[in-house]
């Protein structure tokens, strides 16, 4: 399938001159960058737009995109009040890359969901207006249209709802209220015309959310070597990765939560599980009672939850802040595994730099805490098996990002070769047990 369109001369110039210059400066997980990167490490918005054009194929947006089950597209993905139209996608795209939607004009959606950084920011936590740091890792917008809820705690039920929130968050895009955000763009005659064309109305905040959602529904990245392997091409992925796939379905127990099937091809069950990442730092019981108190005072409004989630330590309680359900304490959403190689660092707080770290965490049975999901247990995987599964993870990257994928593989492997801070072989091999140290005191 041809993705690159070389028709546009500007695009050609950028692709052949600017990009190689920038190529050396693709952001690594440590966030370092040389060359012309904008505020908060993002590539210039104009350049990003051009790159994106190069990545996405031309197709009729009113039809299901290639690679997505048409039935699921029509019945599950598209909401009744926002059917896809080219003018809506165009408006959404313009908004996605528009830094005026932030209070100081430095942050757009594409700042933390950067086309060149896996549609995330490849940082542990995101940086917003005033260089304010949040508490959570930014999920990718790639294939986000297939998520059943958005945010790591699932507090937004749709793409439309999600798009409207970061704009108003004081540490992300920091507009004080919807009117301020609109004021920044509503006087622009282009926007007036685009909103009218797309929704037949003057610019308003609800339609702003809808348009961005419509655009995000075109970010389809489901063409990985893994897909060709599933379709029958046994050479599409390495033998090691194929072994990883067997382990994924078997000893690794991954499929229980990271579900892949034709109707839901992205590797998540859309549910929330406490796998113990937050438990490394927090005292859950104390935080939970704190949270109930705080929510009672501020009222349970969606924005209050949003603010709490990102600003305070309570963020570590995850889904609990949304449902106030005791079973959800410390639970975060199962992330999609598509393009996972590009979206490090990993976990809700970006605490794991490599996929080897992730495997070490699961292999030892997560971190014991009173709310640990019952499905998390020591797996007794050996090093070869871990390598095979990591190899599989890298085979899940869309073919269009092959070069970045390979570079990141080399970087991660080098880093994993020097340090594996989460590895605990005794625990993984079931010589000592989770909860044993908590209960019996020091046993090693």
């Amino acid at each position: 399938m041809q993705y690159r369109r070389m028709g546009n001369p500007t695009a050609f110039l950028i692709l052949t001159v600017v990009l190689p210059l920038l190529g050396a400066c693709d952001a690594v997980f440590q966030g370092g960058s040389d060359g012309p990167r904008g505020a908060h490490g993002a590539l210039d918005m104009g350049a990003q737009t051009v790159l994106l054009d190069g990545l996405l194929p031309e197709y009729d947006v009113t039809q299901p995109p290639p690679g997505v089950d048409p039935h699921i597209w029509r019945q599950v993905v598209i909401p009744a009040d926002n059917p896809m139209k080219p003018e809506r996608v165009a408006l959404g795209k313009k908004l996605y890359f528009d830094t005026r939607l932030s209070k100081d004009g430095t942050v757009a959606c594409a700042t933390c969901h950067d086309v060149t950084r896996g549609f995330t920011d490849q940082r542990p936590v995101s940086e917003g207006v005033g260089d304010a740091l949040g508490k959570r890792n930014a999920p990718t917008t790639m294939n986000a249209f297939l998520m059943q809820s958005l945010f790591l705690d699932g507090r937004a039920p749709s793409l439309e709802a999600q798009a409207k929130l970061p704009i108003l968050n004081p540490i992300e895009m920091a507009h004080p209220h919807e009117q301020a955000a609109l004021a920044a763009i509503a006087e622009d005659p282009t926007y007036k015309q685009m909103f009218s064309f797309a929704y037949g109305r003057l610019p308003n905040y609800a339609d702003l959310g809808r348009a961005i959602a419509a655009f995000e529904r075109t970010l389809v990245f489901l063409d990985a070597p893994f897909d060709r392997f599933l379709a029958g091409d046994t050479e599409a992925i390495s033998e090691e990765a194929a072994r990883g796939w067997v382990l994924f379905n078997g000893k690794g127990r991954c499929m229980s939560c990271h579900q892949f099937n034709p109707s839901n091809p992205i590797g998540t069950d859309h549910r929330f599980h406490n796998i113990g990442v937050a438990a490394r730092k927090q005292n859950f019981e104390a935080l939970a009672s704190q949270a109930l108190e705080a929510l009672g005072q501020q009222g349970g409004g969606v924005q209050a939850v949003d603010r709490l989630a990102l600003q305070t330590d309570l963020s570590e309680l995850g889904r609990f802040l949304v449902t106030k359900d005791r079973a959800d304490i410390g639970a975060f959403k199962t992330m999609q595994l598509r393009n996972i190689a590009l979206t490090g660092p990993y976990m809700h707080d970006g605490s794991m730099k490599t996929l080897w770290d992730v495997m070490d965490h699961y292999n030892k049975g997560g971190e014991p805490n009173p709310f640990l999901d019952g499905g998390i247990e020591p797996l007794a995987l050996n090093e070869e098996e871990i390598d095979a599964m990591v190899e599989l993870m890298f085979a899940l990257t869309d073919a269009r990002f092959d070069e970045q994928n390979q570079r990141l593989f080399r970087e991660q492997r080098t880093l994993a070769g020097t340090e594996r801070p989460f590895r605990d072989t005794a625990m993984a091999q079931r010589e000592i047990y989770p909860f044993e140290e908590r209960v019996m005191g020091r046993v090693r």
Partner: protein
Amino acid sequence: MKRATIKSVETRYYEERDALMRGLKNLDRRSFLKLSAAAAAAALAQGVAFNFHSFQPVRVARAASGATADFTFAYISDSHLYKRDLNDRFVRQLLRAVDDINHLTPQPDFVLYGGDLAQLGQPLELELGAQILKNLKAPVRMMVGEHDWFLDMGEKWRGLFGESTYSFDHKGVHFVVLHSVMEDDFWTERGMTPTQRMQTVAGLDNGIQSRFKVGAEQRSWLENDLRPYSNDAPIIVFSHSPLYKYYRPWNFWTDDAEDVQAILARFSRVAVVHGHTHQLLTNRIGNIHFHGMLSTAWPWPYAPEGLPALTVQMNRADPFDPNDALGDGSVRVNPDGLVDKLYNLWNRNPVQVASAYLTSAGKTATPPTPNLKSY
């Protein structure tokens, strides 16, 4: 996580009396006698008979007035441990339960271990269990299950934990711990080895074993043990088998249940807390409240028939989560001597079955209905 405590007029009255009774401990003999006379008078007013011959009046009077402290005990049950390097899951899950109880604030008064600590009654299994339970901060009361007993007929168990049948008093409540998994000899005629006997009993659906019973000897012990207590005394019975008849093929059953219930029938406040069934179970027969305990090892489906009408099922277990439908829990003993049972289900919201639900025969304080029933 709120627990509803229904305080009737009588309860508040009893609480005042309770405060009075607590004061008794600090009195000199003269004041003590004065107060005890007052208590006796009050008890008489309740229409309870008792004798003056020893300190019994105080005890009986206390029991008669129903003045018990408001306290909680926790439970862990049915861990079915294999030896350590054979099955890690069961060990890990028992450790998790101990961790849960150790993190309760405030700490419970004691922890009941509900039986089936070992899976095949092996010494290594029982020792492993004992070792783990030692790490509970609160004191532990042990109860025996069939998996602990039938390899060596309780030899190792007695060595580790003492007699399997005993009773004790705690804050005005009389606790009885029964060995309710006695079985008629089925093994001698078949020439079974101890291991074969244990394997037979270990199979829930193994039809060769006999039905559980308490037995005549223990029943007579029970009668004697309960004799000093007035009908008003709060009694809590710990039993591994349910002490009623639920489903015979799985030994969710006590053969002489009616006889045991007859002994308990005279008491106005009796609760039976039992193990063995690995599920949320609620029943009431006469004045006797029956509550099941959760297992830490594996859940069981509800039996095809015989489920007590009062039981509001827990959601069926999700096989993809090894800890689902498992957990530990606690029992709160109210000042009125009735109990509220709390099921601390892992990865789910806790479920409380309050005494009001049972006393109202299911009309009030209904536990949450499941949205995924067994079928």
